[in-house]
């Protein structure tokens, strides 16, 4: 009983922490996305978005998120203004 109370107030069990960290690490390993590739992907997305809207480039984030049975690519970006018409691709 005392043990249970002690456990309750302690930090999260390190076994759980390890498990969650490994879920993320292995997913990245398996997708084999290196930080370089991730940066390139981010820049490409930025390029496409900027044709349609004025965005805050600093605010942009791209992450992979692991769900129970899926992997999601989550990107967050702050929009300043949407253009009426898309800009041409390569000016």
């Amino acid at each position, binding site marked *: 009983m005392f*043990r249970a109370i002690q*456990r309750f107030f302690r930090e999260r069990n390190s076994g759980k922490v*390890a498990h969650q960290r490994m879920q993320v690490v292995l997913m990245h390993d*398996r997708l084999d996305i290196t930080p370089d590739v991730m940066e390139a992907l981010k820049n490409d997305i930025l390029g496409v978005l900027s044709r349609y809207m004025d965005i805050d480039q600093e605010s942009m984030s791209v992450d992979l998120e692991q769900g129970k049975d899926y992997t999601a690519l989550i990107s967050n970006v702050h929009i300043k203004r949407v253009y009426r018409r898309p800009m041409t691709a390569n000016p």
Partner: protein
Amino acid sequence: MAGKSIVVTSGKGGVGKTTTVANIGTALAKKGFRVVLVDADIGLRNLDVVMGVENRIVYNVVDIIEGNCRMEQAMIRDRKLTNLYLIPAAQTREKDAVNPEQMKDLCAQLLESFDYVIMDCPAGIERGFKNAIAGADTAIVVTTPEVSAIRDADRVIGLLESNLLTNIHLIVNRMNYRMLRKGDQMSTEDIVGLLSVPLLGVVPESEEVLVSTNRGVPLVHNRGSHAGTAFQNIAARLDGENIPIESDNHAGLMGKIKRFIWS
């Protein structure tokens, strides 16, 4: 029955590959199979001392491949079991003294007269790894419940699959049931969930392992040893027996009773 060739691998060093090869090889031989263990860790010979036959080595695996001796001349018979043999690694050679094609031929040749050919793989994922897996039809990946070992195991599983070695089994070694109860260790379920390969067995952390390597007598000779029982179960599962994973935790029942009394 056509023989099986098994490679025991892990990526990370020091997780228990050599211990596993010695014990499941001995356990299978005790069941009556003809077994040969091949130390594929060229340059870092180890299996011979774990098996206790280090002072009987004349020739090694590189000698066979280079044709310096006949195959039988390099095979050392076990001290206790007449149907168990070891082919030692070369100690003073580099890993590139052999190539995967040669290892494949050697395995095929050994399978003509043995039921089980079990290869002890070096750590790493380079040449030595490729040599060790070349002739295998089954892989056993050994990990411990530790982040670095699990990550390396995952990498190795990926490499095995891309080498079309898809018959892969997992052993979790050095399971510390005390740490597990405290919540300070990943559980077997966690690990199997992460790596998603079928589980062959769970070997407890045990001081007996060190004692047995000190003596050069594999644990499975030692009745009543917890880790030895786990290795015996693993060997039986390889042979197709259906033994529940829970029985690998030999101390499980006694432990539960003790904990019940003390809690």
